[in-house]
């Protein structure tokens, strides 16, 4: 397994999503509020992972433009949930840089029961740079 | 007892019945046997007391084939079996004249012996209207034993004093129930699986395959039991200390599931004292839990649980899920 394949595999694993289920309908991109600011569009994100092109994703602006609003996750008819892939790619990059800012035991205090937990986690990971 | 003899005599005399099915006095104080009486003179040997535990309803299968009506004495719990046999077309209700005899619980001689009372010469107080205490004359003198303490297990969980079928009633019954019917089953259910297995292994390893349970059981009235039938490749007489015995008892209980009235004859007759009623009662408990309360032999037209269903029945996985 090449490094690229391994990374793609890792993203799939972290996200728990199956990019092969994608039927390229584009509903994710149609739903995305940050679409215009992204260089790699949400639906492309899926195909990049299918092609093991994680490097490009890691370099992309999109990674940091995704708001984690999960509109794409909510609406994806094929259960591919591109938002999770974006999130996973971001996590991969953060890990590589050794930038795990949040320690696991700090998280409980930060939790607001009103907020979706995943949003919270991804937001912290992004903005506390 | 006198009354019963008198009434039976009258019915014989006026031709209502051709014979009387009751109990004949034994040669020991505790061993009356089921018997047919055809003349008034014979009736002097008729006896009815606490040792008349045998359920006579099964004998009505053969009696139904005889000419004329048979007067049969049935205790409240026997009438359930009788009804069940009628429902299964084994007994002809028209061929029976039922005297529903009163019952104050039936006695288990083993329970008396277990209290250290041996060498029994005579037992007093076993009659229907007798006192609450038995007086037992033994080789080593007179002993006392509370009637209740000598009662069969089944009487402690009695289904009630009501006769489910009768042409006339004779004698007062007393309440004997002082234990929960399913308490024993529940206690076993609470054991860990390994203990349950060990318990039944120990009990069933006593089984000698004498078939007393089967042959006494009013529900086990098959002309040819599958365990005797060469057509099922299941005939078996060996008592092997492995699964064979369990298979016999599981299948026997399964075959009578939903038909068993819980009359307790199986446990009463087992020479090895195996608590065979537990198998049947477990099925009854499960049936009640899964499919709603059901009592075989009440005389209702209700379909038996195993020949019935509802769309919402529990799935077999319920067994696994309840742990």
């Amino acid at each position: 397994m090449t490094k690229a394949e391994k990374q793609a595999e890792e993203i799939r694993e972290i996200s728990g999503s199956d990019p092969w289920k994608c039927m390229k309908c584009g509903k994710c991109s149609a739903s995305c509020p940050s679409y215009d600011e992204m260089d790699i569009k949400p639906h492309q994100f899926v195909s990049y992972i299918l092609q093991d092109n994680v490097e490009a994703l890691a370099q992309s602006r999109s990674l940091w433009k995704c708001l984690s609003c999960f509109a794409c996750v909510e609406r994806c008819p094929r259960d591919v949930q591109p938002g999770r892939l974006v999130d996973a790619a971001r996590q991969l990059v953060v890990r590589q840089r050794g930038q795990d800012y949040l320690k696991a035991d700090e998280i409980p205090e930060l939790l607001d029961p009103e907020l979706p937990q995943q949003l919270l986690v991804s937001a912290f990971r992004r903005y506390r740079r | 007892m006198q009354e019963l003899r008198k009434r039976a005599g009258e019915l014989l005399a006026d031709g209502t019945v051709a014979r009387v099915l009751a109990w004949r006095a034994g040669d020991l104080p505790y061993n009356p046997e089921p018997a047919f009486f055809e003349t008034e003179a014979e009736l002097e040997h008729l006896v009815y007391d606490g040792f008349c535990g045998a359920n006579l309803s099964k004998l009505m299968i053969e009696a139904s084939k005889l000419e004329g009506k048979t007067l049969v004495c049935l205790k409240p719990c026997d009438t359930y079996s009788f009804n069940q046999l009628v429902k299964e077309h084994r007994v002809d209700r028209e061929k029976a004249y039922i005297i529903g005899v009163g019952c104050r619980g039936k006695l288990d001689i083993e329970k008396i012996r277990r209290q250290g009372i041996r060498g029994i010469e005579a037992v007093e107080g076993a009659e229907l209207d007798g006192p609450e205490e038995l007086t037992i004359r033994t080789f080593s003198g007179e002993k006392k034993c509370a009637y209740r303490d000598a009662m069969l297990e089944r009487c402690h969980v009695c289904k009630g004093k009501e006769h489910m079928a009768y042409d006339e009633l004779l004698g007062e019954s007393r309440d004997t129930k002082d234990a929960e019917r399913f308490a024993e089953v529940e206690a076993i259910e609470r054991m860990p699986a390994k203990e349950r297995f060990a318990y039944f292994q120990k009990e069933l390893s006593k089984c000698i395959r004498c078939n007393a349970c089967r042959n006494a059981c009013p529900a086990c009235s098959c002309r040819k039991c599958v365990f005797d039938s060469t057509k099922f490749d299941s005939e078996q007489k060996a008592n092997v200390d492995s699964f064979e015995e369990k298979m016999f008892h599981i299948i026997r209980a399964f075959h009578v599931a939903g038909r068993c009235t819980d009359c307790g004859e199986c446990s009463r007759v087992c020479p090895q004292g195996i608590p065979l009623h537990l198998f049947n009662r477990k099925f009854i408990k499960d049936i009640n839990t899964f499919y709603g309360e059901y009592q075989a032999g009440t005389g209702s037209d209700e379909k038996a649980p195993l020949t019935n269903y509802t769309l919402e029945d529990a799935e077999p996985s319920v067994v696994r899920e309840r742990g």
Partner: protein
Amino acid sequence: MQRIGVFVCHCGSNIAATVDVKKVVELVRMEPGVVWAEDYPYMCSEAGQSRIAEAIRTQKLTGVVVCSCSPRMHEATFRKCAERSGLNPYMVEIANIREHCSWIHKNTEEATEKAVILARAAIAKVNLNTPLQAGESRVTKRALVIGGGIAGIQTALDIADAGYEVDIVEKTPSIGGRMSQLDKTFPTLDCSACILTPKMVEASANEKITLYTYSEVEKVSGFVGDFTVDIRKKARSVDMSKCTGCGVCQEKCPSRKTPNEFNRGLNTRSAIYTPFAQAIPNVPVIDREHCIKFQTGKCGVCAKVCQAGAIDYEQKDEIITRKYGAIVVATGFDMIKLDKYGEYAYEQSPDVITSLELERIMNAAGPTKGHLERMSDHRPPKNIVFIQCVGSRCADERGKSYCSKICCMYTAKHAMLIRDKYPDVNVTVFYIDVRTPGKNFDEFYRRAVEEYHVNYIKGQVGKVTPQPDGTLLVHGVDLLDNHQVKIEADMVVLAAAIEPNPDVRKIATMLTASIDTNNFLTEAHPKLRPVESPTAGIFLSGVCQGPKDIPETVSQAGAAAVKVIGLLAKDKLLTNPCTAKADVLACNGCSACANVCPYGAISYEDQEVRAPGVREIRRVAVVNSALCQGCGACTVACPSGAMDLQGFSNRQMIAEVDAICR
């Protein structure tokens, strides 16, 4: 002792690649009763079958075991082969070493071992097989069609054409079905009503066809050739023999607020109503739930105005019991509910509609008399957006996993019709794929683009947002240009997925026809027997079996009719000889078996029973082998084991168990 021949098939490499067939042959030779064993590349081929025939003759075989594919595939083939060679066909058993072995196991050693065990079980069974003779049962020369849509009508017409009586049971007050709701049909754009109405009239006029409208199937019993069906004829409250169909009652009815089902709730109707003008029968029904007379007891206007005196408030539901030889299911479809697709604002805005609603809007007899207008303010729309695949091809529980098949074509039709009639209206279609396999289908779609300039955008819509000004903001994406699209539409049309009519589950249960996870009825074989249900005597017509358009539905309807005709043309059917049989010597006559028999095949007789030392007359169970279908429920209910199932006897089953556990 049997003389058994074992024939091991290679199935080309299907079996031989994973199962060492030579070894199987070698090992089964050791089994008791086996006198002959051989292998061959294709046992089902003519050459293979002749080897079996040859061995039956030369080896005087009394039993045959074929180790091959599933018995569901070739059991009949090999049984016929045995019969031709003078061996009772029921002396043949199949060991399924393909589907249950070679195809699922990779390890040759394991697969071979399993193949031998499966063969052993079959040999053990054949050792106890007895020759069985098929009986005969009669065929009632009458068919029942459930559902009066185009599928049902066409099936009935074709069956009637062959000279057989056929009844149609239709739930609604009129036959016609979904097709009667359509305005035009693709790819010819002819008027739906114009081609359907003549068929409806024909069905009603045909003396071989009896229509039971406003009726439902209540109970089905029996089996192929001899079904007994209870049909509930719901009280119409109008005497069909007196009504002239003048329509005065509907005009005068004071209760007018009931949503009009035929127009998909886009307008209302009276409580006494016919669903549409061309309804057949043209006799109204009183919707008792909304009728003032039935609800309050006061009114009775319709009775007063009916000159024919046809109104009958006292009418009761009627149960009609009839016998049929065959039953066709043609229960059709409905659109899925869109309550889970909040992003399309279907429940928020009246201007977001489904395609079927658009059909009614475009139809001259529809709620807008055929004028294209918004349901909110009745203004003509300027921009219309069509969204494809709403709920189709969906992996989650909101929608359906399958492609609804007809949406691409009807959307092209709608787009084209709108552009034709209203050239100023902009029409945009968001699609994922445009699927147009079919004669003249792609040409039709291309015309929409090339001739009518319909704007097709590849990409799905993310959200439809109703704006304060009454427009609908459509957020989409153009995947080919890779940019987001925002369109201010006046009307949004959703190509909602179709699903089998929800009633089909109940009907399938009554018919014991199997149904798949999407509630489509299962066919006996997906390729080779597409119009038959696995349950004998039950046939499938139309969308109840899977999504299809009108021409496909009509062809399947014809195919189902042919199958029905083929069945009804027979005078007798051979019955399955694997029926239950009671051993009178062991029978207690207790009725346990009869209590569980679903066919009422068991009765009791007082018979003289004789055996050594036994001679008595007693009640014993008797199985009517024409009624018995061989399920075996009775065999387990019987405590004494007196009841046994031929072909699957207790001893055979136990022999198989023993062989497997050996």
